[in-house]
């Protein structure tokens, strides 16, 4: 009569295997940063680089950002890719307002960051004058790698959120709408 072994380790049981301890913020942040859906729109040549980042060679889908939504109601991320003119500014602002929270803004390229080379009557000197910007990407235009790095930087920022909410963002002071004339 062979002796039965007193105990055999069979690995964790079904209950133990499915328990992971973490904070709710971590889970929410993980969910929000892992499926950023950008809004489909481009304003100038930066949009070509954005398209390139989404297409086969750079393939943003690898990171979970592939679903460029045609409706602002379904988008989390606004990539301002290009020159924002005074005429376009109210449209961009309206699209941003139509997006549901939580939402983030990336200013892609020199024009969206500060107006770029267009120091003229017709261009908004940086989209930060009308929208709260989370990440600025330099370049004219930035390469797709730079855009990918920018969105990864935004992911790190989202990871730092507490209480399921984005940190309060601010709009740059001093902008009084397009074409408010001053003494020349």
């Amino acid at each position, binding site marked *: 009569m062979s002796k039965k072994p007193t105990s055999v380790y069979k690995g964790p049981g079904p209950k133990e295997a499915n328990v992971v301890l973490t904070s709710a913020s971590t889970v929410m942040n993980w969910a929000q940063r892992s499926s950023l859906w950008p809004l489909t729109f481009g304003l100038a040549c930066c949009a070509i680089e954005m398209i390139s980042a989404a297409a086969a060679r750079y393939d943003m889908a690898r990171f979970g950002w592939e679903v460029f939504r045609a409706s602002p109601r379904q988008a989390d991320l606004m990539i301002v890719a290009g020159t924002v003119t*005074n*005429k376009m500014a109210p449209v961009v602002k309206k699209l941003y307002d139509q997006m549901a929270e939580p939402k983030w803004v990336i200013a892609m390229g020199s024009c969206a960051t500060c*107006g770029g080379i267009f*120091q*003229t*009557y*017709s261009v908004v*000197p940086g989209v930060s004058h009308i929208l709260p910007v989370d990440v600025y990407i330099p370049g004219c235009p930035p390469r797709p790698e730079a855009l990918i790095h920018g969105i990864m930087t935004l992911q790190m920022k989202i990871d730092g959120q507490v209480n399921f909410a984005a940190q309060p963002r601010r709009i740059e002071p001093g902008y009084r709408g*397009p*074409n*408010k*004339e*001053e003494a*020349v």
Partner: protein
Amino acid sequence: MTANWDRQGFGEGEPEKHPAVAAIRNDFPSSILEVESSCGQVWAAVTPANVVEILTFLKNNQELQFDFLSDLTAIHWPERPGAEFEIVYQLYSTSKHLRFRLKVPLKEGQEVETASDVWQTADWLEREVYDMFGIRFEGHPDQRRILNPDGFEGHPLRKEFPLQGRVRW
């Protein structure tokens, strides 16, 4: 390879060879102010009074058939008192492969008749001229700004408009 500017054969100093010049000289002799050519491109300056009449004539003339208004723009000459503005009509004849430029000198605040009844495309081009220079067109169906926002003040392509705009950065 050198560019052949004189493809149409209206060389420097020979603008009178252009059929459009001959036709205007024949039908509107008192309207012509000046005829010139540069790089093989011929232009004529005419008085603003009957410019639409001349344009209609150029379009409907069987020898010319200028059926395409390829551009309509303006120039500001602040140093030229009495003719501070100049409207430029760029005409093209698709059937005759002819190009011709018509210039109309204007005073500050002077209106010119709309060409939108001759070529429909003049509607938007004249709106652009109004937007950028403040020149109004008599009888225009929809004289609004086209490029700048509706509340915009000033006309950016006038020479007195500040180069970097009026918004403080």
